[in-house]
């Protein structure tokens, strides 16, 4: 594979090989000196047209742990409107010798556009409502750690499915690994269809017998846009202890963060032993190391 834009065209073998590399990287991160020379001489740019400190830090740390040089470019969307285009920005970085671009944007498709413009590798760091593939990879990695295998497992994703790049990427990735994905959310936040996922407005149906539950962040804009009523959402869709009882007794809880405590997820659950939220963050660095390694070093072979 040349870029990581989404999971269209990916095979199970490719995903598994990448997650195996992530396991090796996870071990690197447990050593006293958490650094390998794998990407020495490579330059990785994080190009964030939409701010996200967490994702950026995770990628930059991943690149540095493998001895890559890291450049960081943050663009205000206002400067884009003033005529400095995405293309100009990327071509400038290319002229400086960048090999890989981690691109984050509030509009779907920006990484796809970028891949048409630059010669280097493009990694989608989250684009609008479209995709967040490294998030899905770290979710899959975390689920595999907890469940052993995803074959035949039922994974419930709960919340604003329509606007969620995390849901979309997970619905593409998890079925590749054998899982069944159920997405539940209020009708105004459900898409008409989503390949790879079963959609339901019925939270209980999604949670029934689930092997794992992923809770999505609820954006304030959805209330302001008239799509939901907050109290009503909490009453009917918040993942609570009582509701989680429908899932398998050991089913772990995931959340891509940052969390609205006691909105989409009961705070007590977030802090419980079933929550894998901290592991997700830790695994994020290892998974991103694996992605960079596969795309940059794997490419030369």
């Amino acid at each position: 594979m040349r870029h990581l834009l989404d999971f269209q065209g990916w095979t199970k073998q490719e995903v598994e090989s990448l997650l195996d590399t992530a396991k090796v990287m996870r071990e690197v991160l447990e050593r006293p000196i958490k650094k390998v020379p794998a990407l020495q001489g490579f330059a990785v740019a994080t190009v964030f047209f939409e701010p996200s400190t967490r994702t950026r830090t995770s990628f930059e740390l991943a690149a540095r742990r493998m001895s890559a040089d890291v450049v960081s470019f943050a663009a205000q969307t206002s400067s884009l409107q003033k005529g400095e285009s995405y293309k100009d920005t990327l071509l400038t970085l290319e002229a400086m010798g960048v090999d890989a671009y981690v691109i984050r944007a509030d509009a779907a498709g920006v990484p796809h556009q970028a891949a048409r413009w630059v010669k280097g590798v493009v990694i989608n760091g989250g684009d609008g409502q479209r995709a967040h593939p490294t998030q899905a990879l770290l979710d899959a990695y975390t689920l595999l750690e907890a469940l052993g295998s995803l074959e035949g497992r039922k994974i419930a994703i709960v919340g604003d499915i329509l606007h969620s790049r995390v849901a979309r990427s997970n619905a593409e990735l998890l079925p590749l690994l054998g899982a069944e994905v159920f997405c539940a959310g209020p009708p105004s936040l459900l898409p008409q269809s989503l390949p790879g996922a079963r959609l339901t407005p019925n939270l209980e149906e999604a949670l029934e017998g689930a092997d794992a539950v992923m809770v999505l962040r609820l954006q304030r804009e959805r209330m302001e846009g008239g799509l939901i009523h907050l109290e009503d959402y909490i009453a009917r869709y918040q993942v609570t202890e009582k509701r989680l009882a429908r899932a398998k007794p050991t089913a772990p809880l995931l959340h891509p963060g940052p969390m609205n405590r006691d909105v989409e997820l009961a705070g007590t659950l977030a802090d419980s032993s079933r929550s894998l939220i901290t592991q997700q963050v830790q695994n994020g660095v290892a998974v991103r190391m694996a992605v960079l390694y596969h795309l940059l070093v794997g490419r030369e072979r």
Partner: protein
Amino acid sequence: MILIKNVKLVDARGERGPLDVLIGGGRILSLEGGEAPLVLDGTGKLLAPGFLDLHAHLREPGEEVKEDLATGLLAAVRGGYTDLVSMPNTKPPVDTEEAVLALKEKARHLGLARLHPGAALTLGQEGKTLSPAGPLKEAGAALLTDDGRTNEDAGVLAAGLLQAAPLGLPVAVHAEDASLRRNGVMNDGPLAHRLGLPGNPPEAEAARIARDLEVLRYALRRSKARPHLHIQHLSTKRGVELVREAKRAGLPVTAEATPHHLTLTEEALRGFDPLFKVAPPLRTEEDQEALLEGLLDGTLDAIATDHAPHTLAEKEWDLLRAPFGIPSLEIAFPLLYTELHLRRGFPLPRLVELFTDGPRRVLGLAPLHLEEGAEASLVLLDPKEAPVDPSRFASKARYSPWAGWVLAGWPALTLVEGRVVHRVE
């Protein structure tokens, strides 16, 4: 004097020839040949009346970086257009007598296609206060429209129809319910949901057309003159059905479709290229079939380009920020001649009618037929195939969703009242 020898003639009434067409004094003098200093061989070519575009954004005044009258009207004649209606959503919008006169005067000086300025229905196109229809009409405005905006206030639209009716001015509407469309950038449906792009539902168009037709009924009841509602760039099956029903019920409504809605679908957005971002958005194949049916059965009166040039840098923004619009003046006819007539057997006289008499009727102009004594505003079409090459566009927007498509039917000669305004050497 020009003699075009051995050329086939095609207009709304049908095909004839080959004949030798003698042109002089701005008229067709004879279809039986004669003597002329300029003799052109029309063998294998088609001669048609000059085209009229009801819907082109020429961006002057205010956004000449995107297009201006000179480049826009040159693009027009290269596309076979002898007449063109410019949209008034310029900066500032064309909402005064002076602005209309200035455009007409400048276009006259350029001597390319004849400009029929569209004027704003409301001051500043703000949808609140009606613009002065009488003086606008006197200055030469061909229709009133707030295109680019969506006429949220039904009462203002009703008043606009009432005001325009006795002047014989059509009121053209961009029919989309803005509150249902919201920030949609492509057709709402499974593909938009898959691509994670905000959708613009087909119901947003249908809902607005349904409302506007009721507004028209109200204006009809209130007016002694006959108000005329023209629906711009129809894109959906349901929209076509609504216009068809309204026409059957005898309502004075006309409608147009664009080259892009007739040849592209939402599938084009799969590659996330803002080149394909247009309002209303590209729809499904089913919608496209319905538009074709509407062209055939007379529900749709005209093919209008909605030529909407922007700078390439703007079109390289992302799908949320890139502006809506596709430039198409130079290739509209070859595109539809190739895709509809050659590939799908769409009858040629009807296709020509949709570029000529159809839009002329919308403006209340007499039909233009190829006969002795007729005005010599003509286009000679060459069936030779050639690829679309945007780098050679006269328009400032030198990009195209159809780049590389091999098309036939390119205008080889365009005459405005017998005057050569475009000729391929």
